[in-house]
């Protein structure tokens, strides 16, 4: 057996880190310190590692990731706000052997698209959902999201989210894990390298769930929005750790037995 030599650079240095094939060369429009880019890279690495790039169809949301289909080097479509799970369903039902995933923000998934995500999970739709929870509406300029923390200041909760009138944050992983159709529902965070490693493993399992036909799979990723939080990138990472993680506990909410045994 011949093993391909690792790519060499001009100076004969070994290339140990490169862009996944599942990403295009297009620069992204994400703000400095935003973890959308990290999430993209993790998804792309998993698609590469599982050899799924040519089978994958991604559904971009309405939100900051609206142009995700330009960044992923795979076939992609752009959904209406919140409707990505319905669109994914339409695609998966006619192309059951393709790997279909949605990539959605918290406004998209937990507010306007609440019905679509609940029913996709309820049906056990064989799709993978990457859920970016940044506790705010990024794209429209920092309004309150269903995941905004109590007392968190946003442009539409300028005195801080008042739970008496504006309600409480909604914990989607906990809700979706209740669905019989869900095979894999976990929450991870992107605020430091250790958590990023764990997030990647979860994304891998969420695609394994689909490939194995086990049912609905979602990875919720706690993410930053330094721009609309009014923080530096470092402050934003720390804010995830100190404020979001306590409100949205990391962990496995549902893992199908077939996945528990899997070593990835």
């Amino acid at each position, binding site marked *: 057996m011949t093993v391909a030599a690792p790519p060499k650079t001009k100076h004969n240095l070994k290339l140990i880190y490169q862009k996944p094939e599942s990403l295009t060369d297009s620069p992204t429009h994400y703000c400095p310190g935003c973890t959308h880019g990290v999430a993209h890279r993790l998804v792309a690495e998993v698609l590469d590692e599982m050899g799924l790039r040519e089978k994958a169809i991604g559904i971009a949301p309405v939100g900051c990731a609206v142009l995700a289909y330009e960044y*992923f080097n795979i076939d992609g*479509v752009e*959904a209406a706000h919140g*409707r990505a799970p319905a669109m994914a369903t*339409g695609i998966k039902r006619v192309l059951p052997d*393709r790997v279909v995933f949605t990539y959605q923000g918290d406004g998209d998934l937990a507010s306007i698209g609440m019905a679509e995500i609940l029913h996709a999970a309820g049906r056990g739709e064989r799709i993978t959902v990457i859920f970016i929870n940044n506790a705010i509406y990024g794209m429209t300029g920092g309004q309150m999201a269903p995941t905004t923390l109590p007392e968190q200041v946003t442009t539409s909760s300028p005195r801080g989210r008042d739970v008496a009138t504006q309600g409480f944050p909604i914990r989607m992983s906990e809700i979706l894990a209740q669905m019989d159709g869900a095979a894999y529902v976990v929450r991870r965070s992107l605020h430091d390298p250790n958590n990023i490693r764990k997030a990647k493993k979860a994304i891998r399992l969420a695609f394994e769930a689909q490939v194995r036909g086990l049912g609905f799979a979602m990875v919720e990723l706690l993410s930053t929005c330094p721009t609309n939080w009014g923080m530096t990138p470092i402050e934003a990472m720390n804010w995830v750790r100190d404020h979001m993680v306590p409100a949205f506990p990391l962990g496995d909410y549902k893992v199908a037995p077939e996945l528990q045994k899997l070593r990835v």
Partner: protein
Amino acid sequence: MPRELMKGNVAMAEAAIRAGLEAYFGYPITPQSELLEHMAKRMPEEGRAFLQAESEVAAINMVYGAACTGARVMTSTSGPGISLMAEGISYIAGTEVPAVIVDVMRGGPGLGNIAPSQGDYRQVIHGAGHGDFFPIVLAPASVQEAVDLIGEAFDIAEKYRTVVFVVADGSIGQMMEPVELPEPRPLRRERPDWAVSGAAGRPHRTLTSLYLKPEVEERINLRILKRWQEAEANEVRYREYYLDDAEFVVLGFGTAGRVALSAVRAAREEGIRVGLFRPVSLRPFPYQAIRDLAQRAKAFLVVEMNGGQMLEDVQAAAQGQVPMRFYGRMGGMVPFPDEVLEEIRTLAADPPTPTENPRARWLAHMMPA
């Protein structure tokens, strides 16, 4: 194929399956539910996709997803469902993917009732959704015509990469009539070159309705309009009855046109030289044919099961060349042929003046002060 007695909704569903439908997504609503129920039974038998969605919002977005793969896909609903589908219809139009939507119209606005109506005319001819596009809208007047139009609807949708509505009022959906179904067509194997399917051995493809640069969006809008112009040139459909020597012309689509035909026949027996013009494509609307009729007729009578929604298009087509009356029943009421016959008699005996306002006169008659 032998003729069999079938309910309109069931016949439309079976016609779609025989036209090579690959996926159906819908939500129950009277008076179209038998269509969904027939799909529930038959699509799995054929090994094709059927799904009862959680709402019309979801159903149309499932249709949108399937349409992006180049599959033949449809949904069916009634007015309240079309209202919810408006968003998805606009996205489908903006992404330039084909889809077929059946609207079995009922009384409205609001929850209205489940009786036959043509109240969605204005809603569907504008495609219900936001932005600049025209759908193609076909309106059958019998179960057989509904079957034939469903078959054509898919080809037209794919040709122009657009939304095609088949609008049937509740009576066509619910009525049993003898029909001849077409032979089943084989499923298409090849996929269009714009469809997403996984980027195997080719550059990645994307389908979107998002064009952030206005100059690009304008070009897309123009491209959509250009295709619409082609549809306007090729897809105008209408039926003419007793028009050769007609002095008076009744105009009506769908069930209203069918009821009017009985009245026209009765009036002919009384010696009134009257004919019927029945638009089959509501979009593109047969403007030119109506303009030509307006040049030679003494008077028009527009009959609808709404408050005169098509009337405005007939007026636009006629350009003031012919005086006009209107007779409509609303809210789920269906006109009897006798009512239309009476209107034809009055039209012949006491023709309208050129300045007469058809809707005002009708309203005064329906609801005297």
